[in-house]
């Protein structure tokens, strides 16, 4: 019996089928048939919940044709939380249809405290020989292997002590949730962030035993597996005695701020949901946290033209829009040029780009066109997923994708953090 939480089930009946979600949906605007639209999916879910439709393979495929970019949820005037309903339904489907082996491996990897570091270590060690063995045209989704960034030589967490102290009396103290992407791939983001906070006099605590936030697993429906990560991280991150728990990854932030409490509530774990709620109040994206400092006096000129791409998990899930832009505007001689449709999803969508490579790339192509129309030479975004997707679909290196904190660190001339 397929079922979702009572509250979400009632919401399904409040979809009045006005259709306002259709043209806000990047997937519908690519495929142009109703089954690909948010309204279509909700109506099918309604039929399944009413027992009028078997949760078939085809139903599952249609449900999978969604970036979970949440544009429909914020557009829906009736207040239907389409993304929550879709996520719950994916979890239900996983009970009936098991995931393909690659996905199961992926779940296992991200939910294991030992296996992920182990794999990343050997991945890094064998990276060059492995790449030599692969045919030159190999791709992950539509991203050529050559455009996937190299792994960090050492995980970021191992590059710093557990407590990064400051000289004199600290002006603040934060817990740093290092996402997998920063930890294993984009070390310069982590170094920039830590260096920046250090310069501002903020003590940074990096819990060494932290695990993947689990959000990528949840998006594919494997909620029960993700519970391991969620419980572990909730135990590890005690929000008392710190100003904030900071994240540099839009997805990790969305997980800690929204997904943890909501998911635990939907799964009926009340005690966990309460703890997650307390943590959530302290979680801040690095751009939000930095907004309390007067950075202007510290920054040196960094001439360039930058445009900003809004990650779904930062703009829609967390409502963070102006803070990253303000950071960029702070940098002397750095011109911020808004692109058209900065809020539109880049097409990455977690494992979406692996499951639907052509569709994802078509959506990314529109994004890249908007970026190019600004004639900027930099695109800043606070999400490693967007970064991989945009960078991976570029055909040359004229345009560079960066995290806003990397530009700030460079404008502060922090040692070892050059990004452009």
């Amino acid at each position: 019996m397929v079922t979702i939480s009572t509250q979400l089930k009632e919401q399904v009946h409040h979809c009045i089928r006005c259709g306002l979600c259709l043209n806000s949906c990047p997937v519908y605007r690519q495929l142009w048939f109703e089954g690909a639209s948010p309204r279509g999916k909700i109506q099918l879910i309604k039929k399944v919940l009413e027992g009028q439709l078997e949760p078939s393979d085809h139903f599952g495929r249609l449900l999978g044709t969604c970036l979970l970019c949440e544009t429909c949820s914020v557009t829906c005037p009736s207040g239907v939380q389409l993304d929550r309903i879709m996520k719950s339904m994916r979890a239900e489907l996983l009970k009936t249809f098991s995931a393909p082996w690659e996905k199961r491996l992926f779940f296992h990897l991200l939910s294991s405290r030992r296996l992920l570091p182990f794999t990343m270590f050997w991945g890094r060690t064998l990276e060059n020989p492995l790449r030599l063995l692969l045919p030159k045209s190999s791709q992950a989704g539509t991203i050529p292997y050559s455009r996937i960034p190299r792994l960090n030589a050492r995980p970021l967490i191992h590059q710093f002590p557990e407590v990064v102290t400051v000289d004199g009396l600290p002006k603040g103290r934060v817990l740093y949730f290092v996402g997998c992407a920063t930890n294993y791939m984009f070390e310069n983001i982590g170094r920039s962030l830590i260096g920046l906070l250090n310069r501002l006099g903020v003590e940074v605590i990096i819990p060494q035993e932290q695990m993947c936030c689990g959000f990528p697993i949840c998006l594919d429906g494997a909620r029960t597996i993700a519970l391991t990560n969620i419980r572990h991280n909730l135990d590890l991150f005690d929000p008392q005695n710190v100003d904030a728990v900071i994240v540099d990854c839009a997805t990790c932030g969305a997980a800690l701020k929204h997904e943890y409490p909501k998911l635990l509530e939907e799964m009926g774990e009340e005690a966990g949901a309460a703890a997650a709620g307390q943590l959530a109040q302290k979680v801040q994206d690095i751009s939000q946290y930095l907004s309390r400092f007067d950075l202007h006096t510290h920054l040196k000129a960094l001439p360039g033209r930058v445009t900003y791409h809004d990650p779904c998990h930062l703009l829609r899930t967390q409502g963070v829009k102006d803070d990253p832009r303000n950071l960029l505007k702070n940098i002397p001689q750095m011109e911020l040029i808004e692109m058209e449709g900065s809020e539109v999803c880049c097409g990455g969508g977690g494992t979406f780009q692996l499951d639907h490579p052509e569709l994802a790339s078509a959506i990314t192509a529109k994004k890249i066109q908007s970026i190019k129309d600004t004639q900027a030479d930099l695109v800043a975004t606070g999400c490693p997923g967007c970064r991989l997707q945009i960078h991976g679909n570029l055909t040359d290196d004229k345009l560079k994708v960066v995290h806003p904190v990397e530009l700030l660190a460079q404008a502060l001339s922090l040692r070892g953090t050059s990004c452009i």
Partner: protein
Amino acid sequence: MLPPHVLKELAAIFGPERCKTAKEDLLTYSYDACIYEFLPEAVVFPKTTEETAALVKLAVAHDFFITPRGSGSGLGAEALAKKGGIIICFSMMNRILEVNTANRYAVVEPGVIISDLQKAVERVGLFYPPDPGSAAVATMGGAVAMNSGGMRGVKYGVTRDYLLGLEIVLPTGEVMNTGTITAKDVTGYDLTRLICGSEGTLALVTRITIRLLPKPKTKRTLQVVYDSIEAAGDTVSKIIAAGIIPATLELMDRMIIKALEESAHLGLPLDAEAILLIDVDGDPETVERQAALIAEFCKDQGAREVRVSASEKENEQLWVARRSAFGAVARLRPSCLIEDATVPVSVLTETIKKVKEICARNQVHVAVLAHAGDGNLHPLILFDQRDASELARVEKSMDEIVEYALSVGGTLTGEHGIGISKAKYLPQQLSAPSLKLMRTIKQSFDPQGILNPGSFLDWEW
């Protein structure tokens, strides 16, 4: 049921991607924005006039029903397969073929979204005025079929007023053109305007030529707050009677204000009984003068407050919210039927009062929205479809509202169309000769009766 060889021929015309027959896909074409559901037997997506004509010829040869559809935002099952058969969905035939600035017209395919067209022409300084609440959803083909109106009707008219010509596929499979690209044209019967508003019963529209206007230089939105809905209604009648023509003149009652505030957080006054949203557009001096005039006028009529939007962004937010009103009321109750009775603007206030009285007597929730300048009421009747007795009370209220509207010289529907929702009222407004003539017209376009069966002319409950 469609025989296998027909399905095979459909797949041959459209390819497997554009011919859908799986139950899951069919279910997603069983509804529009109304409460009824009819399951089609297949859904096809033409990309060309030739494919459309090929489908019709197949339908003629094998005698199956076809029903055209755009985005499915209709409010009366007009684009549903009421008697089964095939849905021909134009969503993938959606190119803007030409925007001609020298002669101020555009040529589009039927699947183009209205707001996409509006944005495209505004980029080159032109303006397509018809602006239904669903402009961000609905297609141009749908707008032509339904003769969509909307919020700028009071000054600029409706879809019909902007059509220059059409390319259509007749239900016999023949392709023909109506109209021209010139501003004036009296050659023969005006078939363009006969097709427009025919609810997809006479022909399949495959290409649309529309007239465009120069884009107004500036626009100002006034938000006028009232402590009584009567005062708001009276203001509307008096604005019109005074010869002032704003671009839009929308009225919303307390319940709509509450729903919009909950969904969009705009800081609307929750204690107000009614708000008028008034747009004036044109050159800056005229806009300035008109806005001041209207503001004063409203205050004289007892408005509590007149707010003038500070920026284009604020304008935009207000109108986005207004467009979402239909969806927003679904926060209050799960189902909603929009009444669309339209009355002479001089009796607007009495009609609003009467609607509220009818709904109160029948114990149904009603939220009142109106394209007030047109006398076009949109009482949103809120209920839960799962509750049969409530549904019966809703229907009774609708009957009474219709009866009242007709008694004061109004019409059954101002812009949403008859569909199946209002088919039963048709004889109350149209005389027997009128209905007979309409059926004869339908017969001469579609002798075999394959196009959109179960439509307003032949629907029986």
